[in-house]
């Protein structure tokens, strides 16, 4: 890539950690020839190409779809999960949101339930186990049911869909001062609580998911609301309130 007139340069302070047992530290890198339209991850690609060419170990980070729908990428940029732009995943963040010459600190999502595998890559399988505990609906297989046999109002369907947009990236946990996963768990409870298909297992779902949440070692929610502010899908903390109502009702009647 040749130097262009609007090329940007940055000092990156990146968390390097060889493996789960390594203590890790911040290491400074310089990048230039970054064009403003590049995504944050493409900027890291430029750095990694440079490191590979120098025979150094590239920075390990997660990414997959790079269009903000898979929930694989996730970095804490200057202390904010997914960076300074609200409602955006790390891959959707463009370098034009920074100023050339900025020092940018990049850290992994930090929570003991998300152990670091290497550098910026964390193990988020704790989320899978929360979903396995209740984030599903059961129905009989066989011939297809008649269309419109289960009626869902437009409002309920939209409300449920808003919660179902959660991509399970884990930014809520990363941003929470207590490392709680209540926004993630709340979204998974809420999406089923609002529609008829979720009713048969509603009580058991919330009880089992919270039991698993606690067992996985996530912290308590104290309503700081940092999770909603960093959530790339802008999941509302009303899902947490709904989960608490459901939990109270479920623990009283089961």
């Amino acid at each position, binding site marked *: 890539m040749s130097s262009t007139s609007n090329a940007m340069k940055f000092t990156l*302070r990146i*968390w390097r950690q060889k493996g789960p047992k390594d203590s890790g530290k*911040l290491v400074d890198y310089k990048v230039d020839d970054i064009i403003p339209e590049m995504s944050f991850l493409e900027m890291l690609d430029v750095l990694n190409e440079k490191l590979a060419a120098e025979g150094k170990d590239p920075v390990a980070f997660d990414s997959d779809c790079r269009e903000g729908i898979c929930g694989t990428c996730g970095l*804490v940029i*200057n*202390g*904010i*999960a997914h960076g300074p732009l*609200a409602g955006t995943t790390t891959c959707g963040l463009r370098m034009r949101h920074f100023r050339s010459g900025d020092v940018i*600190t990049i*850290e992994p999502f*930090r*929570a*003991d*339930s998300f152990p670091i595998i290497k550098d910026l890559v964390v193990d988020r399988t704790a989320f899978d186990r929360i979903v396995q505990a209740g984030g599903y609906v059961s129905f009989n297989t066989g011939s297809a049911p008649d269309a419109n046999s289960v009626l869902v109002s437009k409002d309920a369907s939209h409300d449920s869909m808003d919660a179902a947009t959660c991509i399970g990236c884990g930014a809520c946990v990363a*941003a929470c*001062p*207590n*490392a*709680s996963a*209540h926004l993630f768990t709340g979204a998974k409870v809420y999406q089923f609580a609002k529609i008829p298909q979720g009713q048969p297992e509603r009580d058991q779902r919330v*009880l089992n998911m*919270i*039991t698993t*949440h*606690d067992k996985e*070692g*996530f*912290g*308590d*929610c*104290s*309503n*700081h*609301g*940092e999770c*909603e*502010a*960093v959530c790339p899908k*802008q999941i*509302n*903390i*009303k899902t*947490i*309130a*709904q*989960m*608490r*109502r*459901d*939990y*109270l009702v*479920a*623990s*009283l009647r*089961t």
Partner: protein
Amino acid sequence: MNLATAAQSSIGRKLISGLTGLLLVGFVIGHLTGNFLLLAGPEAFNNYAYFLEHLFHGAGLIIAEIGLIVLFLSHAWSGFQVWNNKWNARKKNYEVPGDAGGKSKKSVSSTTMLWSGVLLLAFVVWHVAQFKFGIIDTGNRAVMVDGVEMRNLYGIVVDTFAQPLWTGIYVIIMVMLGFHLWHGAWSAFQSMGLANDLYLPTITKVAHFLSIVLAVGFVALPTSIFVFSNHFKAESDKYMQQYGTNETSGDMIYRTVSGLMSAEKGA
């Protein structure tokens, strides 16, 4: 699900924290309202104190005290759990911590709830020792009003807040109360699940307003006693001349306690 298990889950703790917190806010509102009788003079305030102490032949106060102790302790327990789990859930913190801003409700108030809470709890213990048990001697405070023996609590309060030290300490603690409630009052509704995107903005506004009103109210009483201490002391002296006996309030507390003990022996 076993309710004892449910109460100890990450949600159960919040439900307890929110419920006990709201009930304590209710107590604080009642306490402030009652305290404003200080402005109505010694008779009104002391008779009110006597009324509370002898509600249902004294049983009312004991029930209220046990209830408050349970509320304070369970609120403190749930708060401590949140704080304790936070350290277990993230043992290595960020090198560069940040605030997301935007829709976040994180504030200095929300991140120091444990410390403002510990301070308030310690204050409550001291406050009870100071005014209920009178561990700081303020001299002769026993009075006989219409054949009923009571304590000139008004005089004790006035003597206390005539001193800049006590007024200063109480003002700081009451600002801390408003600070604790700035996050705590709206958060209690969210913790109990009594919130959604429609009501939460209103709940938050009312809760913030309430936290300011309570702090201002509780700051206003000691400061006005301090500023107008001559007036308040004159009121108290006039009252003591009219109703005072020659006993100290310490004698009276002693006699009450030994009376109770001998009554117990007799039974």
